[in-house]
Structures are given as C-alpha cells and as structure tokens.
C-alpha cells in the first residue's frame, strides 16, 4: 500500500513556522514578563496560558470568529496577502501557535528569571544597554533552558489536532496535517497508514523531548 507522506511534511513545516513565530513573539513576551512590573502582569500570563486548558473546540471557535474572511482581522489578512487565511496551511500554523506559544513563554520566562540578578546589575553598572544586556548576558546564560523550551514548543506544534481541524480543515494535499491524516486514515480503515504515521510522529516527538531534557540544565 502506498503511504502519502505529504501530511507528515506539512506537519513538520507547520511546526517549524509556528516554532519560529513562537520563538520571536514568545521570547519577547517572556522578557516583558520577567523584567517589567506593570498592572495586569499576572493576568497577561494567565491569558497566554489559557489555550493550554481550554477545549480545542473553544479555541477553534474563537479563531474562526477572529480570522474568518468577514472579520476585521480576516479582511486585513486578505488585503495584505490576497487570499483568505482560514482553511489554508497558514491557519494550521496559527492553530499550532496557540499551544506552542504558552509553553515557550512559560519555560522561557522561568529560564530568564533564573539568571542571577547580580549579573544583570553588573552589566547595567558597566554601561550595557538593556538590549546588549539581554543578548550578551541574560540570553547566553539562559540559552540551554530556552532551547529546551523551543524544542518543547516544536514537539507540541507537531501534534495539534482539534484546533487545526476546525480552522484549517482536512483538505488532503493542502491542509491535512499528520494528526488529522491519522484520524482520517483510521476512520477509513487504512490501519497501516494510521499505524505508520502514529509510530513516526511518536518517534520524532520522543527524539525531540529527549533532546530537550538533555539541554535543560536541571535534567543534565
């Protein structure tokens, strides 16, 4: 029987893009949460974490309302990129982000906060700007934990099912990711395809999590 590997490649592509976005946005959010004092800081933290506990249907519903072609954000997207966002692979990226971003922000915030404050004081005292302090002192010292957080976010992006199904759909060869394809194959009775994809996805996830553990200073 011929196995279609497209869903796996799509999943990897979605995971890469979503992790890249999560890295940039998440690191920035983690920095803000770790360094700034402002009202509603813990509310912001809770809001970022919320997708981890809400049912996928709820999240999918929000995203559809927010990003559908007739919503302001959806219209903006269509004006810029010329095509709607929902039911494309890019919507799958947004779906994956909902889970990878909170994981990354949580772990990266803890990693940044674990850096010895006296080193940051020393850097400021020596005239370093906040920017240089972050890139030359804080981030290098938190490097391993941040990389572990990135790996975790990547692994999570690989496996999203519910939200992806709702906002990206199940269009074979276009938006069907591995997780969705497994469900599809199982429903259709293609146990071989389902089993193969299950094993491959599990192996990749196991590999990444092992890597993350080795990176994490606490696990080493």
């Amino acid at each position, binding site marked *: 029987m011929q196995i279609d590997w497209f869903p796996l490649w799509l999943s990897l592509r979605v995971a890469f893009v979503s992790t890249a976005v999560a890295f940039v946005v998440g690191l920035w959010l983690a920095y803000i949460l770790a360094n700034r004092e402002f009202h509603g800081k813990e509310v912001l933290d809770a809001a970022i974490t919320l997708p981890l506990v809400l049912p996928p249907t709820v999240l999918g519903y929000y995203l559809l309302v927010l990003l559908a072609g007739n919503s302001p954000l959806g219209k903006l997207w269509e004006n810029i990129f010329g095509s709607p966002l929902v039911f494309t692979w890019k919507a799958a990226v947004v779906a994956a982000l909902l889970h990878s971003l909170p994981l990354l922000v949580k772990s990266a915030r803890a990693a940044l906060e674990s850096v010895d404050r006296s080193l940051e004081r020393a850097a*400021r005292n020596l005239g370093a700007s906040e920017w240089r302090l972050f890139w030359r002192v804080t981030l290098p010292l938190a490097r391993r934990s941040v990389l572990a957080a990135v790996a975790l976010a990547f692994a999570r992006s690989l496996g999203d099912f519910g939200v992806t199904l709702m906002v990206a759909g199940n269009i074979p060869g276009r938006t069907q990711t591995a997780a969705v394809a497994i469900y599809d194959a199982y429903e259709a009775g293609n146990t071989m395809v389902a089993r193969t994809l299950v094993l491959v996805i599990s192996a990749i996830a196991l590999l990444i999590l092992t890597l993350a553990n080795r990176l994490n200073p606490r696990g080493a």
Partner: protein
Amino acid sequence: MISARLRKTFPTRPDSAPFSLELEFQAAAGVTVLFGPSGSGKTLTLDLIAGFMRADEGRILLDDEILFDRAAGVHLAPQARNCGYVFQNYALFPHMTLRQNLEFAAERRPRLERHRRVNEMLEKFRLVDAAGRRPHEVSGGQRQRCSIARALIGEPKLLLFDEPAQGLDAPLRAEFYEVLRQVRADFETPMLLVTHDLDECFELGEEMLVLRHGRLVQNGTPAAIFEQPANVDVARLLGIFNLIPAEIRSLDPGRNTSKVQMGEHELDGPYFPGHLKGDRVTVCVRPERLTALARNGKPGVNQIPAQLERTIERPQWMRLEFAGGIAVDLTRPDYERVRDTKDWMIEFPRESLRVL
C-alpha cells in the same frame, strides 16, 4: 566627592518587618567604610547610589553631577552613573573569559583604545596568564582582582564595594587588602566599602560611617570611633567593650578629674564634658585597657576585688572574664605572671574610663 541624602521606606510585608533608611553623608577620595550589622541598610545604600533602586526622597551628587534628585525628578539609569561596583560574589560573567569580562566593560571605548586599556588592566592586576580562562577556572584571588579591574576599566568617579572580603580565607583577605591599598593609591576617587568586619574598618578605612537600623549613628575615623563610641549601641556594635552601669559622683573640670560610683566601688576618672553630677551613665572600657592582678592586702585607688569566672584563650592574648560581666584582656607574658592567682583585683586606669 560624593554627597548623598537618602530616604527609602519598605512597608511591612508578610515575610519582612518594615524598614526605613534615612541617611545623609559625604565622602571624599579615599576609603569610607559603611559599617553596621546585617540589615542596617549598608548594601541598600550602595544600591541606591548605583541606581539599582530609587530612593523615595533625597539627592545624590557625584562631583558636579546629579545622579538622583527626587525634587527635580532626576533619576539617572545605572548605565549613566559611572560608578564602579564590586559585587559581593564578584558577579563576573560566567560564560565569558576574564578578558571578555573586561572587554564587555570597555565596550563603549573606541576599538584600539579598548584593546590597549584591557591589556593594561590585565597587566596591572596580574591577570595576563589567566586572561583566556573563565571565572570558574581561575583562583579566588584572580576572580577578585578581575572584578576590581572590571569595575575600574571605565574610569569610574566612584567605587562601591559590597562586602568584598566576606567569606575569604586569611591569605586571600590579606591579598585583597593589598590590592585595595594599591587601587586607593592609583585612583583618586571616593571608595565606599560595605563591611561588618571591624578589622576591615581599621585595615582599610580612612573614614567610617556606623549604621544601625537604617540610621547613621556615628561617623569619624575608625580610631576616633573606637576611642569614644557615641553611645551604648555603637559600643555594642564595636563589640569589645565592658559596659557597666554607674553614677557620676563628682566632676572637676579644673583638675580634669571625676569620681564615678560603680556598684559599691568608687573610681577616679578624667573629666567628662557634657555630663552632670548625679548622671546615671554607662562606663565603657576596653578590655585591653584594664589590668588584672593578684590581690595583696587592701585594694588601692581604682582597684576593685573581683571573682574570676573563666579564661578564654585567643591567639594573641588571654581574656579573663570576671563576675559582673567585666572582661580583661592580658597579653600572654602578662598572663603568665599572674596565672596562679586565686584572689583577683581589677585595676581601672584613670584615663581609660569613658562614660556614655
């Protein structure tokens, strides 16, 4: 020249008592020691000056530059203050070599000059051989010298030291004192040094500020403060005084004499300016100013009989503790002469008496 007027209040928290710092002082070139028990606000003072924290009230002036002025709304960022800070644990960047630590501090200089300056400091602080290694790969002495070199490389107008010799063993401590004396000779900046070590005050301090509960309780040279503590609290902080309740019976400024009633004994002392006959005071005498001797017949002037309770051996001297909480320090040869005594007297030399 640094002059600071600072007020900072911390309200009561579940895990800490309220604390307030209220302090005004000036320090010229040379080492000024901030001395006090832990929790007296010493490190907080440094942090306010370095700009890591913001005072509620006051003003900090370094030479002609205003670092902080609450009334005028000035609060320079730590980056803009040009204060060298030597941290308690040195705070060297662990992921950089010693050379990179210095380069990081010199980064605002032009490339060529930076290179020259880093090499100069590495040589001056005998770090050339260790320059390529990271902080955890070098000796404690090298770490310490590197942290001082790093603080100095930007030519700061003020140097701040937060308990730099704490937790060091004796040889490293001696080395640190040597380095610091060298720095003091080479750089004409005020240096503020936080410590709760009395030896350090004497070893390094030209001026000394005694802090307690966030207030300045006395300032002056270490020797002067040691000679005449401002009050019982300071005497206790200095930790080496016999403090005995007494009453002044007479005062004679003309002949520079006084009589002090201490328990059932009357002692002769010098004239105590600022006190009146009948004042209840605390006599304050350093243990090494007293003498303990064998009692033969009737005690003489300023000699009182006493009961020896125990003897404590110290490296340079012996401490004899008598009933009533009076301690006498004798040098070892002096102690050898009287060690078999059963019946003791303590002699209070007239000039040694201080009252608080």
